[in-house]
């Protein structure tokens, strides 16, 4: 709809009382929905399946309208059995379809763990390339939405530790669309982690002309800075951006913020370039710290940038506890304050 962009009349005139022609503010869930719709339109082999993805449009409405538009064979409500869903999708992919599976919450993907580890991650390798599995497993993840037990897990560490998968997570509306399209187009299986608490966050974004985004495997500097690097992704990106603004104001620190976007493959180049430049780094994520994503990130950055570092790479993460109940989750989730506390510990006196 280019009409929205240019009515031909000058802005502010009676003929054009609409606001300045700019993309509307679009929530992330809407962009994900558009990505599925566009992928299904573009390629008849793309099939969506999962619990409640049909008439209901998914509990987060990410598949809203797809069954109506493409029919129930293309967007299919399945029985309630996650290993069955993913295993069926594996069989569909073996036959040449491109299934996109929705897991209702990432904690409810655990019953499918064997399928993920023993088949999804290994089928291409097992068959020496003869049987690639171009499938996407979408999983809402993370907390901050007041969800009761099992509704706020962050399980990316499990998938990162499983060779053969790509693990991707958007933090912006443009990335939600662009990375999901890229995931569906990928000939490798992709675990696509959707930050639940950003589903209704909005960016200016035009569904008719979605911005091109860097491919899977690239990290992006969301805020350039000179003093230290915050390495983060998904739901913690806004936290880090806020922390960076606060850091300038309160302490005069100019923090660089890197959005990893793709945990596997990992963009060593962008990440290490930033850390070498700033000489200090903090990894921030919601997932528990011990054995979590930040462990790998801190370890590999240190391996590659050791003599550039003025201080150890620190981690600000969820604690090493089961995700707490809603009324306590604010204690658990890394906020800007905890990020800045870590930045303050980066041994500035020796810098």
């Amino acid at each position, binding site marked *: 709809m280019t009409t929205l962009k240019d009515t031909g009349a000058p802005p502010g005139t009676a003929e054009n009382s609409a606001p300045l022609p700019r993309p509307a503010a679009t929530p992330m869930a809407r962009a994900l929905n558009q990505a599925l719709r566009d992928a299904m339109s573009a390629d008849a082999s793309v099939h969506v399946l999962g619990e409640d993805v049909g008439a209901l449009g998914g509990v987060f409405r990410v598949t809203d309208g797809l069954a109506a538009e493409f029919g129930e064979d293309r967007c299919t409500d399945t029985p309630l059995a996650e290993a069955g869903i993913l295993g069926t999708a594996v069989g569909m992919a073996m036959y040449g379809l491109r299934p996109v599976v929705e897991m209702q919450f990432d904690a409810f993907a655990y019953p499918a763990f064997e399928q993920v580890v023993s088949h999804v991650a290994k089928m291409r390798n097992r068959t020496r390339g003869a049987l690639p599995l171009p499938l996407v497993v979408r999983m809402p993840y993370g907390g901050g939405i007041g969800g009761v037990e099992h509704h706020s897990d962050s399980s990316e560490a499990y998938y990162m530790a499983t060779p053969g998968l790509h693990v991707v997570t958007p933090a912006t509306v443009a990335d939600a669309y662009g990375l999901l399209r890229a995931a569906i187009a990928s000939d490798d299986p992709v675990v696509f982690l959707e930050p639940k608490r950003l589903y209704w966050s909005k960016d200016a974004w035009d569904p008719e002309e979605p911005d091109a985004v860097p491919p899977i495997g690239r990290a992006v500097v969301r805020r350039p800075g000179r003093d230290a690097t915050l390495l983060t992704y998904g739901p913690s990106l806004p936290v880090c951006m806020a922390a960076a603004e606060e850091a300038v104001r309160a302490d005069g620190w100019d923090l660089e913020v890197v959005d990893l976007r793709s945990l596997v493959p990992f963009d060593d180049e962008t990440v290490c370039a930033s850390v070498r430049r700033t000489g200090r780094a903090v990894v921030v994520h919601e997932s528990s710290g011990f054995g979590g994503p930040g462990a790998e990130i801190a370890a590999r950055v240190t391996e590659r940038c050791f003599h550039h570092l003025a201080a150890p790479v620190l981690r600000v993460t969820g604690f090493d506890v089961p995700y707490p109940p809603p009324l*306590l989750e604010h204690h658990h989730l890394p906020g800007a304050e905890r990020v800045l506390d870590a930045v303050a510990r980066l041994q500035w006196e020796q810098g």
Partner: protein
Amino acid sequence: MPGIEQSGTARDAAAPAAWRPGAAGPLRDPAPLLPDTAPVRVIGTPAAAGADPETARLLHRSLVRGRRFNEQATALARQGRLAVYPSSTGQEACQAVAAAVLRPGDWLFPTYRDTLAVHLRGVPAAQALALLRGGEHGGWDPRRWRTAPLCTPLATHLPHAVGLAHAARLRGDDVVALALVGDGGTSEGDFHEALTFAGVLRAPVVFLVQNNQFAISVPLARQNAAPSIAHKAVGYGVAGRLVDGNDVLAAHQVVGDAVARARGGAGPVLVEAVTYRIDPHTNADDPRRYRSDAERTAWRAHDPVGLAEDHLRAAGLLDEETAAAAAGAAERTAAEQRAAFPDTPPPGSPEDLFTHVYARPTAQLREQAAAARAGAAAAPREVPA
């Protein structure tokens, strides 16, 4: 422990006769394991005449209390005084029966939808609804109430029920475990594995499927293609029973018989109670997307509370006193709920995150608890050389 011995014996005769080469012996007869071709009903049938009046009155009172409990909890969720409420409106007969058929020493294994059954079993509303308030994951002491925590990951509590029943029998204790599960939950692998174990161990466990026709938006016909969920039982050597889950007398009889059978050592039972979820899946759900008002209205006419009243009235048991007592109990329940969940929840302490992860917090958790108290990053400081 006949079940255990049975399997012990079975090892020697490695396979039943029918499987032996050339053996002509028949299979175990599946007929006793298969359900009737229609759900068992009592109310409105000749069988109603035989129903015990006292039981009928008690069950009716539980239904009235239960309906009010659901309404009040839904209101609390709307007001933000509960984080969420998955209502069992329409399913009160199953909830009441689950509580009624168990002895104090038996165990109940509920799902997220079964707070009412938990409350009717005796657990105070403040504890039964604590998880749904959002302040904690549990709510009550499971050993004190012989009631497992509400289980959210579907069907995962079913093997727990089997294991507990098996353990109790190994100990020689007279304990039956009753596990609740939804129609959707029966599709999960854990359902299958629990039934398989129950059958082989002959554990004293009863599985009560509340078939409320939907798993969120997915109707039963999309969930499985079996003639009934109760037909699954035969595949595990377990008895399958099918009952009208809105007919509280029928449900009480069938589930009660099942518990007695399990208690008597005759093996596990899978009961399918046919019912309907009148309310949305939770207060956050929009059922207009997936079902018609007409369907809901039709089921409203087969309401468990209404049916029970029909019965009491027909039996001349619904006098004013009975009605008033039921209504009074219901209001006391609602008042207890309101009192338990005031507007402002008590502030939780960050300590709570760390105290019960392990028997004793690890050094790392003690460090993290200190950081949480200070609102600080948990990042450790390097110890100077």
